[in-house]
Every structure is written in structure tokens, then in C-alpha cells.
């Protein structure tokens, strides 16, 4: 196989090898010339530049955009303050220095823990805050000792304030220190210059979703500096471009009213304007203090928040999914009507249960509701009626008629991390569990239980769609983006998401029944005396399944296993201005816990209406 080569080949090869050898030497000589040019000819320039390098390029931070609610109240703002910061690599005896500082000002265990955590996470030359905020007296006490504390400095820095504390924490999100992963992403997307000299980035909520608009662009000052460090003149300058302000559709006062109403209970509420998709309230409870996260949270507090069974860090309206329970019935009723499965006047007899094979599906009302037609099925919330509807329709037909309302799909709201939820179908079950759909599973689907799992945002958007007679608008939190320099305001236009095909006759029937719910049905007590008409539906969703022959007894069940209390409604029924969907986790019966909070929302929005029009 291996042949000796011919002599002339060898000669040619030697010629070529000598040629490339020469090229290599020429190329290296050229490099050497380049080195000599830089290192001899331009040595003094570069030597000076490297001497000055520490201060030659000063970043000028751009102020971050601020966030206002719909009435112009500021809910995330900037300010400046003093921070005690440490560059650990410059500190000879870190522990002693920390102890000494603790004798000057109060440094508590939390500060120290956060400091140590950041020290282990950040890069070696980073400046780490020990106390992110100092008052004037504290600054004075430290400054006199600074000369003998190398690596310790008191710096003016811009701060982010959330004036209402815990309120709206999930909606607003917060800013936080740029992490290693953020930095990689920044470098990847070529944004390095926008973050030069910046230590924070939007994390979660609107601060994250609108990071690009809020951020602005860092400016710089290229200074000529004497050997002594005195600034002589600015050689080049780029002004920072301030970030843009967000004007939200959120009503801050409403938001706080609702949060207060929840108190220590857990849950989610979304209220929006059906005609435009503007979100008026977006509440997730329990909430947390976003300020904790700005300069890195200490691990004890973090563990407490993260491991709490209340899950305060979960953005419930966006990422929490729940079975809708009976609030699903208006949509089921429309599906039954639109598909022709039921006529309005068709009746069933509700004895308090429904037998499928030898399985007994119990009604929430053990003694039954007697003869039930479609209207009554909503007013008294008859489970039996919908067990039979669901049996007759089957999961796939239900899916077909309910899907257009947006269940089990992202709404496309302007936040990051929205989840899909689950709107079951036989195809879904096959993909997910590799099992065929069982007809016995249809019944619980009909009453909004079983695999059904939606976010309150989806519920609210569907409710708004109902109020808007099938026209579904995309939900939006930001109403306008404002350029603080020019004062230009870019309004976000209402966006049509989908038009659900549904006949007026059927809609009127269902809405009328929903109004009756709050006049004589399950919601009557809560809305007694309201100056407006409410179309709504209560819901109670099971958390654990109850044995066939057992009875649900709230007092006997552990608090965490109690039913979820849900409510969906819009008002005024004849010309809807606000739609709302909410859940009170483990709140028990829907009318008891959830409906009163909805009343607060309607009272707030509809009584303010006059004032708002006056503007």
C-alpha cells in the first residue's frame, strides 16, 4: 500500500516547504514589526494610557425608568443614597475590618450573611455592599476612619425604591445584582456597553419584562488625568440615555385594597377592562418585600421565603393554575348550547347525584335541585346537570367549544414566565400519560374539576371575553411608555386576540343566569344592596378527592386540604366596565371567601367611575 514517492515530487515538496518556511518567517517578522510599533514607537502613549487606565473611562449611569400606576402615582422610583461598600481583595484583614466597622455602625447578622454570600458568588474584584443604605450620621462616623480602612468606601449610588413595600411585589418584580448568568446573556446579546458600570438588572415582573425600556443606556466620560489623579479635561463624552417610564393600567389603590382584603389568606386576583384588556388589578398573595432582593438577599431570609408552604414567591395569577370549579359552568353552558347538545328548555331531574356505571357522582347539594333547566343549572350551580352535559358532549367536544375562550393557553400578557395550564382532551392525555381517555373522566371535566387547570389570568381574560360578547382583548399591564427626555408618550394600543363565535341569544341567556346568581342564587347575600348589576358565578374547587360515600366537612379537613374558593364576574351586567376572576386558596365555599373580594373591586372601580370621568 505505502508507496515510496518519486524523486521529482520530493523536489517539489522541498521547494514548497521552503516557500512556506519563508512565508512563516515573513509573517512572524511582520508581527514583530507590529510589536515593535506598539512597544517602541507608541510606547509612551500606551504607557501613559495604562497608567491612567484606572480612571480614564468613567461610566455615567443612566437613571432607570420609573413606574406609575393608572392615576399617576409612582410605584417604583429612583433615589440616591450612601452605601458602605467593600472591595475584599484590597482589605488586608477582612475579619478585623468587619469587626471594627461593627463598632462604628450597626451591622447585623443579616448584613454579614448577605455580604459573605455575595463575596462567594461575585467576581474577585467586585465591590460588595456591606450596608446598602446608610443615614447621614452613620456616614459621618465611618468617613473619619476611612483613611485607615483600605478597601472600604462610602459611595453615593442610585437606589430603587418601591414606596408601597410588599404591595404588588409579583407584578413589579424587582431589580437585583447582575449575576454570572445575566452577564453571559448580556455579552451574548451584545449589550455589554449598555450595562457598563451598571450593577443591577431587572429580575421578575415588570422590571424584568420591560428591562429593555427601563434600562436606558450608560454614558461615559473619557477623562484625561494627571499622574496625581486630578482630572484635567474630558476628551470624549457620551451622555447617558435615561430609561423610559412605564405608565400602568393598574390601579394602585385597588391593588392595595384587594391585598388588604386577602389579609393572611393565599390567592390570586385579576381584574381587567373587558373592552380594552387593560389590567386594573393583578394580585398575588402572600406577597413579599422586593427591596430584600435588590442587593442580594441573605440566605436565611431566602430559605424562609423559598421554603414557606405559603409559597410567597410564586406569582400566582401568572403561574399558579387551579381547577376552576363551578366558575367553569357558564362556559360549559355556552358549549352545550353552541354545540347543540342542549336547548335552553331541556331539563333534567337532579336527585343530588348522578350514576355513571356503578360510580356515584355526588352533587354539592346532597338533597338535589329538583327539575333543572339550563338557566337554573347556573343559578343554583347544579353539578348533576353538568355531569350529564359532559357525558353527552365528551371531552373532545368540550375542548373544541371551550378552547376559543383561551383556557389552557397563554394570554400573552406583558410579563415573562406565563404558564399554559391544562385544558384536557383525549389527545392531550395520550401525549401526556400515554393512556386513552376514559368516559368516566368526562363528568368531573364538566364541573371544572379533573385535569382542568387554569391560571386566574386566563379565567379573568375569559370572563372579560364573556362580558365583551365574545371579543377577547389581549391583557396588558402597561398602558403607555413615556420618554422622560422628550416627554413623548407611546400608548400601547388595545389588541384584539380572538373573536369567539357565539350567538347573541345564547349569550343573553347565560349572562342573565349569571345576573340571577347574584340576585337570588349563591352570590345573593354578598351583593345585596349593590347599586349595579353583577353577572358572576361562584366556584368551589376540591383540593383533595373525597371518598364516594364520605361527606365533605370543612371543620374536619386540615386547612391546607380545604376547598379553594373561586369567583368570576363582570359588572355592570348591561354594559361591563370591569371583569374579575379570583381564588382564595383553601377559602372554602366560593360565595363565602371569594365573592366579597370581588364586591370590593366592583365598588372601588364603579364608584370611582364618576370621578374618573370628571377628569
Amino acid at each position: 500500500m505505502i508507496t515510496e514517492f518519486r524523486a521529482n515530487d520530493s523536489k517539489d515538496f522541498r521547494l514548497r516547504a521552503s516557500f512556506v518556511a519563508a512565508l512563516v518567517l515573513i509573517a512572524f517578522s511582520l508581527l514583530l514589526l507590529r510589536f515593535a510599533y506598539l512597544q517602541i514607537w507608541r510606547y509612551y502613549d500606551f504607557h501613559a494610557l495604562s497608567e491612567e487606565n484606572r480612571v480614564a473611562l468613567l461610566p455615567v449611569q443612566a437613571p432607570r425608568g420609573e413606574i406609575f400606576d393608572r392615576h399617576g402615582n409612582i410605584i417604583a422610583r429612583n433615589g440616591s443614597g450612601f452605601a458602605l461598600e467593600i472591595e475584599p481583595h484590597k482589605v488586608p484583614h477582612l475579619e478585623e475590618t468587619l469587626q471594627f466597622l461593627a463598632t462604628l455602625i450597626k451591622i447585623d447578622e443579616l448584613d454579614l450573611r448577605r455580604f459573605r454570600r455575595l463575596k462567594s458568588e461575585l467576581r474577585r474584584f467586585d465591590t460588595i455592599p456591606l450596608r446598602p443604605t446608610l443615614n447621614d450620621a452613620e456616614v459621618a462616623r465611618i468617613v473619619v476612619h476611612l483613611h485607615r480602612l483600605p478597601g472600604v468606601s462610602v459611595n453615593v449610588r442610585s437606589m430603587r425604591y418601591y414606596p408601597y413595600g410588599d404591595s404588588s411585589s409579583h407584578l413589579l418584580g424587582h431589580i437585583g445584582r447582575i449575576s454570572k448568568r445575566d452577564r453571559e446573556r448580556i455579552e451574548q446579546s451584545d449589550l455589554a456597553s449598555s450595562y457598563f458600570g451598571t450593577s443591577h438588572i431587572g429580575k421578575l415582573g415588570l422590571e424584568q419584562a420591560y428591562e429593555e425600556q427601563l434600562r436606558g443606556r450608560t454614558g461615559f466620560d473619557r477623562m484625561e488625568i494627571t499622574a496625581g489623579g486630578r482630572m484635567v479635561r474630558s476628551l470624549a463624552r457620551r451622555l447617558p440615555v435615561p430609561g423610559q417610564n412605564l405608565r400602568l393600567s393598574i390601579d394602585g389603590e385597588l391593588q392595595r385594597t384587594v391585598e388588604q382584603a386577602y389579609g393572611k389568606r393565599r390567592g390570586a386576583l385579576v381584574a381587567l377592562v373587558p373592552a380594552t384588556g387593560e389590567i386594573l388589578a393583578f394580585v398575588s398573595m402572600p406577597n413579599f418585600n422586593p427591596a430584600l432582593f435588590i442587593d442580594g438577599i441573605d440566605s436565611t431570609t431566602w430559605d424562609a421565603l423559598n421554603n414557606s408552604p405559603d409559597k410567597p414567591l410564586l406569582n400566582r395569577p401568572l403561574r399558579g393554575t387551579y381547577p376552576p370549579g363551578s366558575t367553569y359552568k357558564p362556559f360549559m353552558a355556552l358549549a352545550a348550547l353552541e354545540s347543540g347538545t342542549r336547548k335552553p328548555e331541556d331539563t333534567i331531574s337532579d336527585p343530588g347525584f348522578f350514576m355513571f356505571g356503578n360510580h356515584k357522582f355526588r352533587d354539592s347539594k346532597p338533597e338535589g335541585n329538583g327539575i333543572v333547566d339550563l338557566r337554573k343549572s347556573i343559578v343554583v350551580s347544579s353539578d348533576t346537570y353538568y355531569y350529564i352535559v359532559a357525558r353527552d358532549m365528551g371531552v373532545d367536544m368540550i375542548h373544541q367549544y371551550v378552547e376559543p375562550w383561551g383556557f389552557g393557553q397563554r394570554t400573552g400578557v406583558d410579563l415573562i414566565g406565563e404558564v399554559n395550564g391544562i385544558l384536557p382532551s383525549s389527545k392531550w392525555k395520550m401525549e401526556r400519560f400515554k393512556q386513552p381517555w376514559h368516559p368516566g373522566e368526562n363528568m368531573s371535566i364538566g364541573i371544572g374539576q379533573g385535569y382542568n387547570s387554569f391560571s386566574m389570568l386566563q379565567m379573568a381574560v375569559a370572563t372579560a371575553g364573556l362580558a365583551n360578547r365574545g371579543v377577547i382583548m389581549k391583557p396588558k399591564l402597561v398602558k403607555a411608555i413615556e420618554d422622560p427626555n422628550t416627554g413623548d408618550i407611546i400608548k400601547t394600543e388595545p389588541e384584539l386576540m380572538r373573536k369567539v363565535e357565539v350567538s347573541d341569544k345564547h349569550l343573553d341567556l347565560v349572562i342573565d343566569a349569571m345576573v340571577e346568581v347574584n340576585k337570588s342564587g349563591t352570590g345573593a347575600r354578598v351583593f345585596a344592596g349593590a347599586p349595579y348589576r353583577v353577572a358572576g358565578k361562584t366556584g368551589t374547587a376540591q383540593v383533595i378527592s373525597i371518598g364516594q360515600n364520605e361527606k365533605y366537612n370543612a371543620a374536619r379537613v386540615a386547612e391546607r386540604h380545604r376547598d379553594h374558593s373561586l369567583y368570576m364576574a363582570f359588572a355592570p351586567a348591561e354594559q361591563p366596565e370591569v371583569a374579575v376572576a379570583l381564588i382564595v386558596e383553601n377559602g372554602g365555599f366560593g360565595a363565602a371567601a371569594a365573592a366579597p373580594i370581588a364586591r370590593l373591586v366592583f365598588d372601588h372601580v364603579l364608584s370611582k367611575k364618576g370621578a374618573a370621568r370628571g377628569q
Partner: protein
Amino acid sequence: MASEIIPRGWRGIWLRIQPWVAVFDGPFMLFFLGIAFLSTITLYSAGNDFDGRFAGHIRNLSIAVLIMWLVAHIPPVMIHRVAVPLFVIGVLLLLAVALFGDVSKGARRWLNIGITRIQPSELMKIAMPMMLAWLVHRVEGLRTIQHWLMAVLLLMVPTAFILAQPDLGTAILVFSAGLFVLFFAGLPWRLVLVALGIGVLGVLLLIVFGDAACADGVNWPGLREYQRQRVCTLLDPMRDPLGKGFHIIQSIIAVGSGGIFGKGWMQGTQTHLEFIPERTTDFLFAAYSEEFGLLGNLLLLSLYAGLILRGLWIAIGAPTLFSRLLAGAISLTIFNYAFVNMGMVTGVLPVVGVPLPWMSYGGTAMVTLGFGAGILMSIARTRSQTVQGFVLQRSA
């Protein structure tokens, strides 16, 4: 031989070690150890602020030497035999990357094989010249147009895959490794000179018309926007002093401020104040240059030149067409790495992620280049075994 008495002292130690290191090519190893020494002390300085990086570098260098030693034991005949399978595996892996590869930093380069992630394009840097050398050997020189078409096809397919990832730096290295083989196999001189001419002309045009071509919104056919930005930043780093120009500006300042004698080991302010980005990997040369100056650069360039010329010398003496072409291509690949890296650090070439051979921190290149050097030494060994026959032939 076994009964020979081994003397005491240094000579005795050498005699004991000698059988173990005999597979290494002496002069090549000398240059290599010189570079390894410089890289060790530079990395100690530049990597001072990275925990474990120095130890990692020592480990990587050891692995490189081990691989060199192992591969040097493989006779060239064996290397010849595995050329085609290696290339086929390489192409299949590249195909797999294109289909199921992991995306990291915006490019699809990695293949997850369960235990670890591999970067098949790296394999191609060696497999490509092996394959082409095998082809030329097989047809005894590229004599017909079909031969050339075949060779060009083998060259283009993997290059296209790697370009699509996208990874311009590796694509250039793989493409040129193959091109070197074709050059040694007798690429017509006219073509070589024309290509060189076009290259020089292109650079001149870019310098003259650079401003217009770098204006916002101009598209360069065949290049992605970030690649255009790199070239433009090279022409005028001050376009974006905080962003893309920052690396180049700071690294040039580091090199220039080193002067003739350098600032001294561990004294580089640019290095130690973190002004040099990637100062332990692709931009290590900036740190070296700052601390050891022009004289240091001269030393390092000489070591590389020595290494490359020794490689070419091994190629000239190689006994088969295959090994000759392969040795030539590997030598030039080492040159390619060194030249592109030092050029990019000093701002004459655009920033493509090419490390400085055996200097930069990083395991992948150490392994690839160690493999290449091992092949060179394996070929050198056969050469010394056949050298007498060769000399006789020449004098005849």
C-alpha cells in the same frame, strides 16, 4: 544491552529516562518545553485571580504531553489507516451536531453524548488534513480534475457544517488545515499567488473603504452581523469603546505599555487590574507581552518559529507521501494558530476565538494540538529509521 552497566550521576539519570522519552523528537521537544515554561509562568501571573486556574493549566499541559507521548508511539502506518474512519466519524458527528446539538452562547457546537459534551469540529482540525493526505497518497498526487474535485468536496463539506454552527474561527482553522495539504500536494503556483494577491488587495480595500463599509445598516454578503462588527471594530476600535472595542483597546494598551523590556513578571497593571478580557485564554499573549515586553515577544516568536520549521523539516524527510503532507499541514496549523492569535491580540486581525498553542488556558486546544504534535513526532521517528536510505538516494 540489558547487561550494560548504567553509570552514576547525571548521565546515569539520563540513561534511565532516555528509553522513556526516546519517542520525542529532541529539537521539537526543546522548543515545546520553552513555550510550556513561558506559558506556565505567564498563567501563574494572569490567572492569579482565578482559583484553581494555574493548577488546571499544569494539568492541561501534562495531558498534552501525555497525549503527545502516546500518539508518538503509534507508527505512521497506523495513523494512515485510521485517517478515513476518523474523518467519517468526524463528519457524522458534525451532522449529529447540526441535528441534535446543544446550543451554547448562540451557536450550536456541542454534542451531548451522555457522559460529557464534545465539540466535533475540534476533531476535524486533525481529521481534515489526515483525510486529504490520505486521498492524495491514494491517487499518488492530485493529477486529474476529478482528483481535485474530490479533494475540494472533502474540504468544503465539513467546513460548511462548521460555518453553519456558526463558528468562523474553527471553520477557518479546519479549512486552512486542508488547504495546506492541497498546497503541499501541488496546488498550482498561479492559484497560490493569485489567492495571496487577492488577500492582500482585500485587506488594502478594507483599510481604504472601511468607513463606508462599516456604516450602520450595510450588509456584507456571506458574513453575519456580529462578524462584520468584529472587522469594523478592528479597523476602528473607538467606534464602541465600552462594548466591542473594549477588548481590543485594552489588549493593545497592554502590549504597547510593555515596552522593550516589559513591566516584569507579576507586574502587569493591565493584567492585574482586570483590564484585559479573557486574559488567561485567548488574550493571554497580551498579559505575556505586557510583562515581558518586546524581548519576550521575540523569544516567544523564535520558539514558535523553531517549532514550525522543525515540523517542516520533519515533513521534508518523511518517508511516505501521506506522512509528508500530514506533517507539513500540522506544522502550518500550529503557525496558523499562533499567527492568528497574536495578530488578534495586537489588533491586526479580527477577534476570532483562536487560542495561542500551549500558552492559552483551555483543555480542548491542548488535546488537539498535543495530538498533532504526537503525529509529527511519530513521523519524525520513522524518518530517523529510514534516514540512511534517504540520504543514499539523495546523493545518488
